[in-house]
């Protein structure tokens, strides 16, 4: 344990120091409290008040939670809360954690856990890697993270035949791609689709399709995720393309590098410029809102879509299920992922989010941090994860139960390939009633709604279906990225944060903010240039401007933080191609489609949903 100087803790009775006793079991039955929990993200659905999961949390922890989430995605509400010293008891944010920490706006998790939830501290330090990944230079941990899992869990998952999905990707309409491949084969019988897995090949496919299917210039033929000033690179689509073209934040020596200053970035922008000048990536495509993009996907307009895959997954599903009435081909015209290299033939490395997305902190305004830390302990524990993902055990409550054990915890089972696997937490399946509810919604159960401390690997290791496969959309989410699995990598090495205790912190933030804002303004302009030379020239001008704005100092400071982060994680290289020992060097592309063996067939009963 640590010395927790600097914070004043309220004088509530301490929990038992025995860390094998679950902390949330230590509260007075009559002491039900109410707290506010703000989630600074528009992506998450909040659990409905009175749903089974919420009621069970109240029963277990004695805490009634008033969830609130951001109505805008630009951080306005959180900024107002911080500025007005009006933070809620619990705050889950996607960015800006260091500012909250440096402003002493949050309690250290370790300080609270030492006093009131030793079992949480045991879980974090002994069972998990969260502490090592996110502790600060003083050894304090200020946030708990969702979508986080440990290396050991990934290994277990691989034993079961699973693997990590990349976060995002590039998809194209399967019917168009197959038609193009057939055309190429008709021209040259020895042609294979791996030959088109490069920028020129994909460009040829796009122009051929536009011409062959007589798509007009007003058609949104190539779409990228909507531009959003809060995105690191302006749009998730740009970020994905950067990964395809090998633009990275680490140079060959393992130092921090500014990715926009690389030749690969210039090549990527020139490729986008080619698409623009061929009327494939039009101004209408670049200026589309995410709502418009979803609408275009639902009607099958784009030949290719680049970017976020989970956000538009409902619309991919709607297209496949022909909701718009424009897709008689059904699944044959589905959007499928493609993989291709840059012109140097470098195989892409697509990031897989193994680190967090939401960072949950206990605000210094919280009046009952002793109870709130117990709540976090519960939600982080196996019991909490089970509740969030599966609901209530039918063995405990036959009438209202939502799942049952197929394999008991600790039971060893022989898998299809003949290997033995021990299910540490058991294997679970939903009741028929819940399975049916999943086809429309499970709001009244609250399952899959309280995801603010979720560990997605838990469901991968415990579900009879081997993951989250409860409805058609879940399959779309998987299939839109599954074939890219061999090309994904653990990006934890790049998840470093700027050291807010460093003197350079503020000036670095200003430089970062100025440069991001300037790139955001320039992307459309650069893409819309008349020639590739003009694109290169515009980028060179931007880099020159960035240097005047303090790029060199920014790189130096980032590098120091990056090296410290990698050292904490015990890694020399964060970028697989730089690591001579990584499996990257054995990677090959055998098909534009990637590795289709990862595809999963959607069960028939899920296709007959009345949307």
């Amino acid at each position: 344990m640590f010395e927790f100087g600097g914070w004043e803790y309220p004088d509530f009775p301490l929990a038992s120091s025995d860390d094998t006793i679950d902390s949330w079991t230590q509260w007075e039955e009559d002491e039900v409290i109410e707290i506010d929990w703000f989630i600074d993200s528009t992506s998450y659905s909040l659990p409905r008040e009175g749903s089974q999961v919420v009621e069970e949390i109240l029963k277990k922890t004695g805490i009634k939670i008033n969830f609130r989430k951001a109505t805008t995605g630009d951080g306005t509400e959180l900024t107002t809360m911080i500025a007005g010293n009006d933070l809620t008891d619990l705050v889950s944010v996607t960015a800006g954690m260091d500012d909250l920490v440096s402003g002493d706006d949050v309690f250290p998790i370790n300080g609270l856990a030492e006093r009131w939830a030793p079992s949480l501290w045991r879980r974090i330090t002994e069972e998990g890697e969260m502490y090592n990944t996110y502790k600060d230079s003083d050894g304090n941990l200020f946030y708990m993270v969702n979508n986080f899992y440990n290396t050991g869990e990934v290994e277990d998952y691989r034993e079961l035949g699973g693997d990590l999905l990349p976060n995002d990707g590039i998809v194209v309409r399967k019917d168009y791609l197959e038609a193009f491949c057939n055309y190429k084969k008709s021209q040259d019988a020895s042609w294979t689709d791996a030959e088109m897995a490069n920028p020129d090949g994909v460009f040829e496919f796009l122009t051929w399709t536009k011409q062959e299917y007589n798509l007009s210039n007003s058609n949104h033929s190539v779409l990228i995720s909507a531009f959003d000033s809060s995105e690191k690179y302006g749009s998730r689509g740009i970020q994905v393309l950067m990964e395809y073209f090998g633009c990275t934040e680490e140079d060959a020596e393992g130092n921090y590098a500014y990715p926009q200053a690389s030749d690969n970035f210039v090549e990527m922008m020139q490729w986008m410029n080619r698409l623009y000048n061929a009327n494939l990536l039009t101004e209408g495509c670049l200026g589309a809102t995410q709502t418009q993009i979803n609408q275009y996907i639902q009607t099958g307009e784009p030949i290719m879509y680049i970017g976020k895959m989970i956000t538009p997954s409902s619309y991919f599903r709607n297209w496949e299920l022909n909701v718009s009435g424009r897709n008689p081909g059904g699944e044959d015209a589905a959007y499928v992922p493609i993989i291709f290299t840059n012109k140097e033939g470098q195989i892409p490395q697509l990031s897989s989010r193994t680190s967090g997305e939401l960072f949950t902190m206990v605000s210094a305004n919280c009046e009952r941090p002793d109870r709130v830390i117990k709540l976090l302990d519960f939600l982080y524990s196996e019991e909490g994860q089970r509740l969030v993902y599966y609901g209530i055990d039918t063995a405990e409550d036959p009438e209202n139960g939502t799942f049952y054990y197929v394999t008991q915890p600790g039971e060893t089972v022989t898998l299809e390939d003949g290997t033995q696997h021990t299910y540490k937490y058991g294997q679970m399946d939903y009741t028929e009633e819940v399975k049916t509810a999943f086809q429309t919604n499970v709001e009244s159960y609250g399952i899959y709604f309280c995801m603010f401390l979720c560990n997605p690997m838990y469901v991968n290791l415990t579900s009879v279906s081997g993951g989250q496969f409860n409805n058609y959309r879940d399959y779309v989410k998987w299939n839109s990225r599954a074939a890219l699995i061999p090309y994904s990598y653990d990006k934890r090495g790049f998840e470093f944060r700027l050291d807010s205790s460093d003197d350079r912190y503020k000036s670095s933030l200003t430089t970062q903010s100025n440069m991001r804002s300037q790139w955001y303004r320039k992307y459309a302009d650069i893409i819309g240039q008349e020639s590739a030379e003009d694109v290169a020239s515009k980028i060179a001008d931007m880099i020159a401007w960035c240097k005047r704005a303090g790029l060199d100092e920014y790189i130096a400071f980032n590098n120091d933080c990056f090296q410290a982060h990698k050292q904490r994680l015990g890694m020399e290289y964060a970028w697989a191609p730089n690591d001579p020992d990584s499996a990257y060097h054995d990677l090959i592309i055998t098909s534009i489609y990637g590795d289709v063996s990862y595809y999963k067939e959607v069960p028939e009963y899920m296709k007959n949903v009345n949307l």
Partner: protein
Amino acid sequence: MESVLFRKKRKKWNARNWTVFIVATLGLVYILVFHYVPMVGLLLGFKDADYSPNLLETLLFGDWVGFSHFRAFLQDVNFWNVMENTLIVNLILLLLNFPAPIIFALILNEVKHMTFKKGIHVVTTFPHFISWAIYGGIIIALTDQTTGIMNPILELFGLSSAENPVYLMGADYIWAVIIISSILKSVGWGSIVYMAAIAAIDVELYEAAEMDGITRWQKAIYITLPSIASTVTVFLLLNIGRLLSNSFEQFNSLQNSVNLTRSEVLATYIYNLSFSARRFGYATAIGFFNSCISLILLIVSNFISKKTTGEGLF
């Protein structure tokens, strides 16, 4: 005559008429709380408040940075772009959007069919009550290249085609979209005050003019317009004072990455700096700069107006 007016004024504000005092006090309290007290926050423009986790603390105890934020703004790479967009769009709006409700009120005043007149006024006033978030969404939908109705209409006039589609939300056309949508949204509502001013004109003036054989056009030019001149002057001066202010909601709802070089105005720039970049000190300084320029414009235009027409705000 003057002494009678004076007595009447004193009588109106007599303490016995306590309801008037209460109403007036509420207004004063409102102005004090929501307009004067927040001005204390302007101090942040002179403090090291960027990325501050506690603005109140920074306001009270933060380090002074003098005019460094103001200097930084004048050297900001986006300064000229933002100022150009702000000024040009507002000048065009002043030229087109300001007279539009006056002309509309004059035209509507000539309509004799009362039901039709009221109907038109209700229809044109209605958009004012729709928020820009919704109105902007409607405009985006109408201008959509594949599903909107604007491109087919433009095609009818040979201004767009499937091969050369016009993207109305792009940088080339966004000013036109902003100005036209602004006029459509505000013309009905804006005309109400002028309609009221016209209604207050003594009908005997018109009757006398009719006896002299004046035409309807001459009535509008020589009677109606001069009679509402003071109202027009007041609104003109207020509009000039707002030359650096834009409707944040309007620009924010129509802004996208393609038209940003034409749609970024001071209001959206300050908003993004404050809430996305959290550069509170810098954003406050820009806001203060904006207010100072607006005040100067208002004083100068008021001075010119008083010299030339004898009418003014103060």
